[in-house]
């Protein structure tokens, strides 16, 4: 029975997408949103049921084949489901956020001519994401992985007549493809050494290849598992926008806001986090790979947060915040606190989707103005958006009691306990990140909802709270942003919530070490007031309050005083310049050079047309010999005969 349920969870959104996409004109706008929302609602309810079945009721999950994709020799590649505690958790998060975003879209895209197309895309995305999290093998994982990337590509470029949008989506796709290159090589490596693409087989075989090495660069011998894990993680760096493959995420804000919430905050970008957690039986065998994960995550967590301080576009601030929070999740993975990362993934999905949708609500009210320099004082006009934004912000900075507090605090604590060589550096990064998070979050909050009203007169006159299809999802997301931390911190981190689905090496089990001093969620909140993160967050809040509420004239002066730093930040550490002006230009230059020199000049000019010219020259010479005079021919014949005879005689002799 559960098999049919799982099938239905995945296929319902696909059906919705097909109906809305192919028959959008026939069923009309209302028809399109009814079909897709109905389908995703079914998915959400069934996912909740599956979650209850596997996690609460404790029934054994499912690991089986749907159909055989292909058979080659001894290798059977199958499409199948793995539903265990980890995937069931992801299914609930994905479908719930997706449902909220579907409803919200009715309001946000109300006047858009591509209404049906949009619903078709986001339902298709939900399908692809579910395929990804429910996969039980690497082929299907890669399918889901690329499929969510494609829908993201389509949605970033949704307003395809905007040059900036279609630049951003191409950039997003190509940067992700760089990650996917690593991902595919990782899969190929695992296939080579385990002979299978099924998770179960690969995980079973992993302990047997811990000692295996492969020839690496410069004659070195590389550990197979380390190589494979780092390659897989390169894929995660693309999808989860980790430094230095992070450049596509801020630009992806060119897409409509609902998808920024759904795809570029709550779900798709967390696929990399999910994947590493899913592969914990592999990563646990390689301390080197875990260290890479830890360091990359730490760098992303701190340095991407800093960029949020100088952005003026409200969505870009939230996007940098997303980058930074993804960095936190990645650090958690590196510290082997997979459960804490997934927990943060879940809480972040709620409060970040909330923040994005609230930003979208502001953008609707401001008539698609996104520059915070032309906002201010909005709390009077949009009370629901204001309060829910505040809740989201408090959850994001880790205010004790809010959901983000429990998850982020646990990650910081886990990094503190980690014994990896770079754990000290990572701990410094994530601690300072707390201050930065509070600073940019409240900067945005004060700039948007408080202070002087900097918009023009026309916009101000039309300011009012957004309709219910927008505000209801905000409220529905605000509730879990406050509540899920209390409920899940204990079972997820210290209980048996994830069962066997996440495996941690006993010597590296930081969460087990933390369990010793665990006295319940309430005690954790009480304890928070004597820990560094709380005071750092408070410090961030106070500074933000001072700079952007009390004395809004100061930030410009600071920016002026630290001109060099400010420039580096506004130029985003020059990564965009590096990739666009150097790497992309280099690629185009190589292509052009190989074509003009290699193909046109050498192969065609020299070899092909050259040999044609050679033949032409030869025939010219031959033509000159053929004079048409009989005595010339007769002479030549006699000469030839003499030559042949003398040759014959010489050889015989």
């Amino acid at each position, binding site marked *: 029975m559960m098999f049919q349920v799982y099938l239905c969870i995945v296929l319902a959104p696909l059906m919705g997408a097909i109906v809305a996409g192919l028959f959008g004109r026939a069923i009309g706008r209302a028809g399109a949103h009814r079909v897709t929302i109905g389908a995703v609602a079914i998915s959400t309810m069934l996912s909740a049921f599956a979650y209850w079945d596997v996690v609460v009721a404790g029934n054994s999950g499912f690991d089986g084949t749907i159909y055989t994709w292909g058979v080659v020799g*001894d290798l059977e590649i199958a499409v199948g489901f793995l539903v265990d505690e980890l995937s069931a958790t992801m299914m609930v998060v994905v479908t719930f956020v997706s449902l909220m975003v579907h409803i919200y879209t009715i309001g946000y895209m109300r006047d858009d001519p591509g209404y049906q197309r949009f619903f078709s895309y986001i339902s298709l995305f939900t399908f692809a994401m579910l395929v990804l999290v429910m996969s039980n093998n690497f082929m299907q994982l890669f399918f889901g992985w690329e499929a969510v990337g494609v829908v993201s590509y389509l949605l970033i470029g949704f307003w*395809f007549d905007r040059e900036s949008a*279609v*630049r951003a989506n191409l950039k997003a796709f190509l940067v992700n493809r760089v990650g996917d*290159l690593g991902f595919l090589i990782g899969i190929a490596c695992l296939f080579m050494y385990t002979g299978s693409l099924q998770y179960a087989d690969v995980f079973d075989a992993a302990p047997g290849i811990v000692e295996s090495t492969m020839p690496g660069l410069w004659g070195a011998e590389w550990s197979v598992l380390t190589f494979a894990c780092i390659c897989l993680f390169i894929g995660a760096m693309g999808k989860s926008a980790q430094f230095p493959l992070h450049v596509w995420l801020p630009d992806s804000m060119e897409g409509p806001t609902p998808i920024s919430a759904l795809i570029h905050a709550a779900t798709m970008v967390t696929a990399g986090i999910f994947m590493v957690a899913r592969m914990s039986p592999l990563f646990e065998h390689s301390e080197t790979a875990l260290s890479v994960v830890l360091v990359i995550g730490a760098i992303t967590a701190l340095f991407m947060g800093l960029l949020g301080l100088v952005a003026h576009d409200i969505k870009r601030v939230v996007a940098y915040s997303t980058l930074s929070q993804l960095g936190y999740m990645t650090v958690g993975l590196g510290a082997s606190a997979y459960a804490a990362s997934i927990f943060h993934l879940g809480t972040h999905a709620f409060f970040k989707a909330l923040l994005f949708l609230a930003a979208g609500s502001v953008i609707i009210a401001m008539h698609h103005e996104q520059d915070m320099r032309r906002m201010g004082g909005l709390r009077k006009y949009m009370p629901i958006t204001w309060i829910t934004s505040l809740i989201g912000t408090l959850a994001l900075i880790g205010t004790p009691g809010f959901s983000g507090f429990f998850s982020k605090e646990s990650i910081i604590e886990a990094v503190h306990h980690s014994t990896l060589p770079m754990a000290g550096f990572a701990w410094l990064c994530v601690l300072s990140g707390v201050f930065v998070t509070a600073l940019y979050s409240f900067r945005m909050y004060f700039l948007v909802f408080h202070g002087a009203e900097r918009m023009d007169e026309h916009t101000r006159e039309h300011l009012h709270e957004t309709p219910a299809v927008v505000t209801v999802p905000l409220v529905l997301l605000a509730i879990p942003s406050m509540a899920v931390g209390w409920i899940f911190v204990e079972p997820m981190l210290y209980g048996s919530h994830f069962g066997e689905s996440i495996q941690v090496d006993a010597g590296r089990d930081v969460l087990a070490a933390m369990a010793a001093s665990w006295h319940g969620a309430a005690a954790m909140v009480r304890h928070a007031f004597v820990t560094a993160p709380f005071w750092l967050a408070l410090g961030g809040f106070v500074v933000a309050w001072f700079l952007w509420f009390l004395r809004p004239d100061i930030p410009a002066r600071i920016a002026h005083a630290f001109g060099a730093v400010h420039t580096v930040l506004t130029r985003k550490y020059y990564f965009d310049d590096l990739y666009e002006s150097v790497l992309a230009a280099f690629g185009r230059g190589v292509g052009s050079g190989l074509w003009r020199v290699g193909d046109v000049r050498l192969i065609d000019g020299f070899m092909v047309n050259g040999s044609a010219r050679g033949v032409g020259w030869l025939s010219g010479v031959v033509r000159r010999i053929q004079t048409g005079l009989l005595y010339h021919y007769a002479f030549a014949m006699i000469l030839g005969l003499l030559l042949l005879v003398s040759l014959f005689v010489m050889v015989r002799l």
Partner: protein
Amino acid sequence: MTGLPLLSLLVWTPIVGGLWVLFAGVGRGPSTVRAVALVVSLATFVLSIFLWAGFDAGTHEMQFVERAVWISAFDIHYHLGVDGISLPLVLLTTLMTVLVVLAGWVVIEYRPAHYMAAFLIQEGLMVGAFSALDSILFYVFWEALLIPMFLIIGIWGGPRRIYATVKFFLYTFLGSVLMLVALLYLYSEADSFAILDLHHVPLGFTAQVLVFIAFLAAFAVKVPMWPVHTWLPDAHVEAPTGGSVILAAIMLKLGGYGFVRLSMPIAPDASAELAMFMIALSLVAIVYVGFVALAQPDMKKLIAYSSISHMGFVTLGFFIAFSLMEAGDATSAALGVEGALVQMISHGFISGALFLCVGVMYDRLHSRMIGDYGGVAHPMPIFATFMMLFSLANSGLPGTSGFVGEFMVILASFKAGAWIAVLAATTLVLGAAYTLWMYKRVVYGPVASDGVAALSDIGRREFVILGVLAVMVLAFGLWPAPLLEVMEPSVEHLLEHLARSKL
């Protein structure tokens, strides 16, 4: 069904139909000609469905074999048969011909009877080449094939068609002359022209190398492999849409087919010895040509270079098999070879579809240059959707057929050497870059000109053509098992044969 000479019907129905169109059709109106051409191509396609239905996927033996003495003085036979390697190619040929006839429906106004006749005759010759089991018969079909394509480009082609046809003809002809020499030499050794007999003729190492190189000259040009690929972009640019489709979808596959049917089984030791060389050439095709594609301002040239790059996976998949067999890994070797074969079929659909897409735009705006377009999605949303699908398939998106072959070959090639897989996998980035960059500049963005704004979306005929290909691309992407099942016994037999040294 077994009583009917199905393969002969598949070869001769389109040829006879084509000759009828050629001689009787000229005096009649173009609508009669088109209708007859469509009926003939559809009938051939239906016949090929029967071939597939009657095919036994449980054996590597040649099926539907027909054998009769043709020229007794030279021991040449009219000898036909198909196995799991050639059957999918025959089906691809019959399907694509139907689509090409449809694609030329109202577009071709100049001498429509000759146009349709050329494609029908060509279809028969291609089926003949894929099913010939006598090497001279194969050679005859192989050479005869050049003539209709030569005429198609030369008569219905673009402004530089003479340069393109001469280049095309000389390139391919020079290559195939060496093949003929090799076949004659093999006859002197084996006393037979039957291809299956040639597989078993014992040959010394030097002889094998010479035979391999002679075949290579013919097949490398056809595939085409770097550095004998430059005829293809020129031929594509000048060819009419239908010519480009057949050229890319089927004629290139003859080169790949030649490797598995002749070079590798006849000269296994030489193939194994030269495998690294062939792998290197394949990788150059994938990477070098991928970069070159990036720089193309002409859509047809871009797709032509993309074809060369994708065909690199075919030769790569074939030639990694040798080191994998040596390592005793038959499954991976099969993965490589079957991946290469799947890539041939898939590339037929995808490149054909992309050339048809360019044709749709060319019919309306009479330009192939990327710079003349922009914002096509506005006036042509349905077309833009189809082209998006095919562009993604060309980028190797999982769920489309373009993924299957590349995935299998990359998985297998990692075992042959990690660096081979890494270089091959650069296609993930390069393929997406040149395809989607083109898509962005042509279809996305603001409407570029009044000409683009006035474009009309695809009609019912074009919808059917692109729709059929879209179904194919998705079906084989989501479920390649039926295709692999047909190939499996023949590929396994081939690999067993390759593993046995002739020395």
